[in-house]
């Protein structure tokens, strides 16, 4: 930064107007969600945003309540257990998938082994198969392996996504020079040690980005748990929140409170890893 004030020009104004518009589009639904989570069911139907009234800042604060949040964590719904389930499922999947994809992607980029070409073609081929097509065969497999109604049945198919293997392969090719691996080989590290001690730290931006991507994918997974898990106590947040609604009646206040609870851990994870996430997604965009 040179400390100069940017000169205001027509493109500058247009860009900023566009950014403001995009920000509004992103922020308003989030604000709506947070406010709705603290409204009664009646308040939800009566006021679009905050209930206006005689209170401070012209808002009728008495109409806001934490009742919905309380109901969520009560034995009636028991979102606490679902939250723990979701955190366990998403964290385990994210860590396993990131480690396995990094390992496979690194091997594909940095090592020579028999069947390497076939492996690369297999990964590329897997990328073009639409996931919904795999639901039925996966179910069949899980049934055969006796993994239905288990977390293993949900986690196992998600720990080696072809997309992740491909992503880490490209990241290795781009950010881990061959000579560094050779230097480590001469220094006395074994192949797994080279991956763990040398390559993985160099792939850190991609590790951060992929952790978030896989965590989110499992966190938001709605169809998978419904198909694989049968026991009510094993269900994750996405399913439990949906189950608060019935075919004839939707309690929107409760739904919004549940959604708010569900986005908080993800937001925290993103804040924690956001630097890596942005660096991972933009790696290669700028010559180092």
């Amino acid at each position, binding site marked *: 930064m040179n400390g100069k004030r940017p000169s205001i020009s027509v493109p500058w104004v247009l860009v900023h107007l566009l950014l403001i518009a995009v920000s509004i589009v992103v922020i308003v639904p989030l604000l709506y969600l947070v406010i709705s989570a603290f409204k009664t069911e009646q308040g939800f139907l009566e006021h679009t945003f905050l209930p206006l009234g005689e209170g401070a800042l012209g808002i009728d604060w008495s109409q806001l309540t934490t009742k919905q949040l309380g109901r969520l964590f009560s034995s009636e719904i028991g979102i606490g257990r679902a939250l723990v389930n979701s955190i366990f499922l998403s964290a385990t999947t994210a860590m396993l998938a990131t480690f396995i994809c990094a390992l496979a992607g690194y091997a594909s980029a940095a090592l020579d082994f028999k069947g390497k070409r076939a492996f690369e073609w297999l990964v590329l081929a897997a990328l073009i198969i639409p996931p919904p097509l795999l639901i039925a065969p996966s179910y069949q497999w899980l049934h055969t392996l006796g993994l239905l109604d288990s977390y293993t049945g949900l986690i196992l198919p998600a720990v080696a996504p072809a997309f992740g293997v491909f992503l880490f392969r490209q990241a290795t090719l781009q950010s881990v*020079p061959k*000579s*560094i691996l*050779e*230097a*480590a*080989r*001469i*220094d*006395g*590290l074994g192949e797994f040690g080279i991956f763990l001690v*040398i390559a993985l*730290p*160099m792939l*850190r931006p991609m590790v951060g980005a992929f952790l978030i991507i896989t965590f989110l994918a499992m966190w938001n997974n709605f169809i998978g748990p419904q198909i694989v898990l049968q026991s009510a106590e094993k269900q994750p947040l996405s399913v439990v929140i949906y189950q608060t609604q019935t075919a004839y009646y939707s309690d929107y206040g409760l739904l919004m409170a549940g959604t708010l609870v569900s986005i908080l851990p993800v937001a925290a994870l993103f804040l924690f890893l956001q630097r890596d996430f942005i660096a991972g997604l933009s790696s290669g965009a700028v010559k180092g």
Partner: protein
Amino acid sequence: MTAVELNNVWKIYAGDVAAVKDVNLSIQPGEFVVLVGPSGCGKSTTLRMIAGLESISKGEISIGNRVVNDVAPKDRDIAMVFQNYALYPHMTVEKNIAFSLKISGMPKDDINKRVQNVSEVLGLHELLKRKPGALSGGQRQRVALGRAIARDPKVFLFDEPLSNLDAKLRIAMRTEMKSLHQRLATTTVYVTHDQEEAMTLGSRLVVMNAGQIQQVGTPIDIYNYPNNRFVAGFVGSPAMNFIEGKLRVKAGETHFSRNGLDIFTGSVSYLPDTESDAVIGVRPQSIMLVQKETPGAIAATVDQVEPLGDQMDIKVRIHDDTVIIARVPLQSGVDTGLQIHIAFDAEKVHFFENSKVGARLNRRS
């Protein structure tokens, strides 16, 4: 001190592409040998085979009387410095230097002592806590050197270590490496494409082309007695001038002519009697400005002048438009367009066969 032997070494890649062909080389203990040649000549592949980073297709490599064909790089007791430094970017300079020692299981106190010693020798004290990203190119190269020295290996392998540095720093590092070798006296194999670097550093040069060794010898030997046209053209700057023509040698008297013009007449040692097509080679430094009346003087027109301080390179054309480069004193007053006369130093002319290999004709007896 350890010797390195390469016996009939080949490197053949998929599709029968031979990158290194039947290389035989004996490197003496403590010697500083430089593999030099143009890009793709097989010098780096040869070095990588010594390091164990590249498998050997045929032949045998020994380090200190032990055949290492199937020995892993870490067990060859070597240290290598790469062109792009290959420092671990997430580790500090100190950790980079200590890394191999830590893996080898050396006690912590000994590692610290070794790191201190190395940083003293190379002046790295100030940089120990920094990461490679915060260092300049020269500093990174110094750290790479430090990492290699810390291992106290039997053999140092350098793969174009100065290529990424600017010209001034390259010369400074060259001097430093030479004095470092004099101090450590560790057997060193150094790869470069820069013939000037090779000449100044190596106690012996190995000139390579197209996967084969063209000549092995001291820098002076190779400069003065190149085995063939390739070596003659590769070593020396500006490159040697080559003129094709007819060579006639009778009773010690040598005549070389081209298109009817006598290019050279004189007495050249070690040249057998012959009458054949040949190539005369003369370095720009072996061309003199002479008077018209001087025996063997060739008339030439100056096309271009490149001043170099106290000397200048001039590009001249002789009768049939053959271009010759000569290095002459700046005070000679030569300028573009001028008609001058030049002659070749009889002691320093080279004759080669007019063939693909272009073997040297005036061999030493």
